[in-house]
């Protein structure tokens, strides 16, 4: 399939056969003036001129262009041109350029030379802008209730193309039909000044739409505000409710309520001005103090004042032990109780020759290496053990035969596992992650999809189905209550019924429920969690962003010990990204409610247990976070951090460069793997620390 067409023939070394055909007019050249040209003119071309000078075309349309050539003296020539458009966005069609996709692209125009011609042909590379298709219709909607005289409401305009697609972030010009009755700002907020009938106008690319509003008097006597709690801690979400009451004592459900707050700090010197978030009546404070939350509709308002205290959750963290790995980079790990009743951990390695290590962690202060296994791989990225402890999975990347697959370990002797089988059926791509359950294994294949594998006989696994979202790239999968949640970069979170049954799915017949994209498009890891304190069901989804380009703190991505001959080695890496917390209590209507974002570092793997988040935050170390209660805003700024542990190791693979990969709470302790220093065991001390 050709994605680009040519005018004339390419190159400075035309094949004789092609030359004859061109001169005889036999090649199917597109019908431009240039096709009348001759190869003999080619070597004399000094300058190519294109009209129009700035090429702009709408998506789905073709813009005509004229190409002319001149010699050194400015004389016009008629060479044979070749034109090629950047294939992802434009193509040469007939006498012009066709826009395939909105964006900025380039067009290459070259003069063809006859065989044997010396020197390079004249050529030019031009920018081409492809605009969105023309707008066909616009919809205007209120975001805040009904507009009454004396109130203001924000409106939104949605613009659609002829094919039904929606223009992302359209540039809207707002106006109103009668400025004496109403006014509108550039953001679509309309203020109604008097009673009457007014039209609100939105214009996008010259296309207009109107919405007529009847500006009635505001039938409001007062607003009563109630709060779910009157005294809370920072980070606690308070649900405020406003009752808009008419003079007759009834309620006005479509009153345009706006929320705001007044903050009275305990110490006006150290506290910031913006101390809380209030959205749709849900309020959360980041700092202690007294807050008055106000609901307003036009000239009428009501308020409620609450007290917010410091959350006081910080606890000291104690290092128990380390299973040091300083000669290879460590990847993921899993800690578990073996079938012999002792406690074990398995760690993988990254870019290091396919090793996995097995540790006895029954005494966390005395972590003992019991065995290792080397598989044909450069990276054992992910290691996990089935809930029943029967088998473990080592995922392979960089196998010498490029048939990567997953290695299944028989864990009958947890201290000295043996390979049950190397399973690569349908898994020849690099296998990045796996999620083993007692009966089925969910295993990624080459970033494309995941397979569901029957593990009844671990020596004879059998693939029963696969899940592949077209055009999506997958990185992680986790299963909870018969539903698989996968992290798929730009696609976001993908929810698949693999046995829950609500949507008729089973492991043999997985049913895709929905997808939920997240801001930034870097969805890397997921962790489903039923919150103990509320019963709500959340997906914690993490970004992975390496390098911090565009941040004030930029940085590189070194992965190697110091080598004076290789630039950048021996330094810590730099990452970015955060945890998105999405409420899946209604699985068909997920809603992002909060985030955990430490600005100078980047997230990796996630674990939540007992309403505590154990977040591996790469160079930010292990972060232990209180995630109890309703969640809103950025948990980092709400005093919810319980502890931070940075696994510095002066003799690590890269010295003193914490790069925390994963963390798991286990039997009262916390285990974590760190890329530069191996396996660690730490413990939170029971009593809260005293905050200075």
């Amino acid at each position, binding site marked *: 399939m*050709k*994605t*680009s*067409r040519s005018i004339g*023939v*390419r*190159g400075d*070394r*035309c*094949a004789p056969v*092609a030359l004859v055909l061109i001169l005889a007019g036999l090649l199917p050249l597109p019908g431009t003036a240039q096709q009348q040209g001759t190869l003999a003119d080619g070597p004399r071309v000094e300058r190519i001129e294109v009209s129009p000078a700035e090429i702009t075309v709408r998506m789905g349309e073709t813009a005509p262009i004229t190409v002319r050539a001149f010699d050194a003296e400015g004389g016009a020539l008629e060479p044979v041109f070749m034109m*090629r*458009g*950047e*294939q*992802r966005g434009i193509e040469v069609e007939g006498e012009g350029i066709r826009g395939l996709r909105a964006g900025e692209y*380039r067009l*290459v125009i070259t003069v063809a030379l006859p065989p044997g011609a010396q020197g*390079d042909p004249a050529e030019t*590379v031009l920018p081409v802008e492809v605009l969105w298709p023309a707008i066909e219709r616009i919809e205007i909607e209120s975001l805040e209730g009904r507009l009454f005289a004396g109130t203001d409401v924000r409106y939104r305009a949605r613009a659609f193309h002829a094919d039904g697609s929606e223009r992302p972030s359209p540039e809207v010009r707002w106006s109103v039909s009668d400025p004496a009755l109403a006014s509108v700002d550039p953001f679509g907020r309309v203020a109604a000044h008097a009673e009457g009938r007014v039209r609100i106008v939105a214009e996008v690319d010259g296309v207009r739409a109107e919405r007529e509003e009847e500006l009635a008097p505001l039938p409001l006597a007062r607003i009563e505000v109630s709060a779910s709690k009157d005294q809370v801690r920072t980070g606690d979400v308070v649900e405020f409710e406003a009752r808009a009451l008419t003079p007759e004592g009834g309620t006005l459900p479509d009153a345009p309520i706006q929320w705001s707050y007044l903050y009275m700090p305990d110490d006006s010197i150290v506290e910031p001005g913006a101390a809380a978030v209030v959205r749709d009546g849900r309020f959360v404070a980041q700092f202690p103090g007294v807050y008055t939350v106000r609901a307003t509709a036009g000239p009428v308002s009501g308020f409620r004042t609450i007290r917010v205290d410091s959350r006081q959750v910080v606890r000291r963290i104690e290092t128990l032990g380390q299973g040091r790995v300083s000669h290879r980079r460590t990847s993921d790990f899993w800690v578990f109780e073996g079938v012999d009743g002792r406690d074990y951990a398995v760690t993988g390695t990254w*870019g*290091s*020759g*396919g*090793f996995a290590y097995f540790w006895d962690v029954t005494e966390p202060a005395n972590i003992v290496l019991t065995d290792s296994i080397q598989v*044909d*791989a*450069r*990276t054992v*990225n992910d290691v996990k053990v089935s809930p029943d402890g029967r088998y473990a999975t080592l995922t392979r*990347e*960089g196998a*010498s035969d*490029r048939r990567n697959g997953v290695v299944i370990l028989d864990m009958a002797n947890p201290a000295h596992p043996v390979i049950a089988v190397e399973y690569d059926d349908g898994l*020849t*791509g*690099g296998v*990045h992650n796996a999620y083993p359950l007692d009966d089925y294994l969910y295993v990624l*294949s*080459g*970033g*494309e999809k995941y397979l569901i594998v029957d593990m009844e006989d671990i020596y004879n696994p059998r693939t029963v189905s696969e899940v592949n979202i077209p055009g999506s790239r997958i990185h992680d999968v986790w299963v909870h209550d018969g539903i698989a949640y996968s992290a798929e*970069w730009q696609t976001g979170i993908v929810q698949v019924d693999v046995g829950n049954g609500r949507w008729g799915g089973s492991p043999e017949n997985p049913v895709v429920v929905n997808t939920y994209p997240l801001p930034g498009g870097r969805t*890397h890891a997921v962790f489903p969690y039923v919150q103990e304190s509320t019963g709500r069901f959340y997906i914690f989804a993490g970004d*992975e*962003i*390496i*390098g911090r*380009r565009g941040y004030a703190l930029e940085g*590189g*991505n*070194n*992965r*190697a010990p110091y*080598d004076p*001959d*290789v*630039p*950048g*080695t021996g330094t810590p890496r730099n990452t970015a990204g955060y945890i998105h917390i999405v409420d899946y209590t209604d699985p068909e209507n997920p809603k992002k409610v909060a985030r955990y974002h430490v600005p100078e570092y980047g997230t990796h793997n996630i674990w939540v247990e007992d309403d505590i988040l154990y977040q591996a935050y790469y160079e930010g170390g292990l972060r232990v976070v209180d995630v109890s209660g309703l969640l809103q805003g950025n948990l980092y700024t709400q005093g919810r951090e319980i502890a931070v542990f940075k696994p510095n190791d002066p003799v690590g693979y890269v010295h003193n460069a914490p790069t925390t990969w994963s963390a798991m709470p286990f039997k009262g302790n916390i285990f974590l793997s760190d890329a530069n220093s191996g396996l660690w065991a730490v413990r939170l001390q029971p009593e809260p620390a005293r905050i200075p």
Partner: protein
Amino acid sequence: MRLRAVLLAMAATLLLAPAAAAAQAPEATYRVYVGAESADFLHRIVFGPEGARVEATIPVSALYEQSGVPELLTEHEAPHGVAVDPQGGVVWMTTGHGLPDGKLWKLEAGTGRLLADPVSLGRFPASLGVSPDGRWVYVANFNLHGEMTPSSISVVHAEGMVEVARIETCTMPHGSRVHPDGMRQYSACMMDDQLVEIDAGELGVARRLFLGVGEERALDPDDLGFHAPGHDAHDHDAHDHRAHGGHYRATCSPTWVQPDHAGTRVWVACNRSDQLLEIDLERWEVARRFETGRGPYNVDVTPDDRILVVTLKQGDGVEFIDLETGVTRALEETSTRVVHGIALSPDSRYAFISVEGIGAEPGKVDIFDLRSFTRVESVPVGLQASGIAFWSMEEPGGE
């Protein structure tokens, strides 16, 4: 029969070129670039009177930091294909992984400085070829980790770094090389047993040759192979070779194609059938067939048209075939396993062979003397040495 020919050729070689002479260090100084797919490095190797060593290492992460690309690598980027343009000023490198697709990188030869932002191509861009004028780069989107569906050859304008075409060819295209006249490009289809010729003027497939063992013949230019949607394996009477799932199981599994300097023939490495095919370009048919060691992978011909050099991926060695007679002159073991690419010095004196290694073994660049056919040096490089390309040769006393 074949073993006896090899032994005879090797005996003759020993008589003509004493081993002591072979061990001598070269008088000239040679430099090659080689990728390390599992270390995310591009190395420059120097080989001269002082021996051979890694002269420079360029981490892919350092290239990202020079670029304006917001994306930075999260996993292995996997440098796979390496080429130096015929003018010697630019090093081209493909990286196989990305979000989601791999890239083509353009570096200044010598300094390793990034010359332009990388351009995103298709799934796992692998081997690449540069047109003789250095103005066009043809990259095989190998799609190593994807579904068994037809992939493509990307055509990139070198100066502007503009991907002007993505030509769908077949399943797992590999071994991109450009004809000496610049008007045609060749690649092989590992899973469809095809040799594909692209017309560089029309940017479309001009000819296809089916390479299934014993069934070689011309195909329709529109035939995307056995894994194209709706394709019936019976179309090619290749029903005996279908694997489970109804997919065709390649019998040749071509991994590389190399035109000769005159532009009259190409050689194709049949990795599965242990053969090297010589294809007559005018007649578009198999002209000669060479039996090789196990798993021929890459092939190149010395500038003096004397020797075909073949890497044996599964055979852990390099085979040197006399081009005129077709007789194997030598079959030498490499210093480690999984043999990959070939770079030949312009004086036809040395072959630089990249060897991947397995697991924690370092990759290697083994250097073979093309007179004695002995390995004279072996340079450890990053994990999984991959594509390799010759950059420069300095004569003794030269600047």
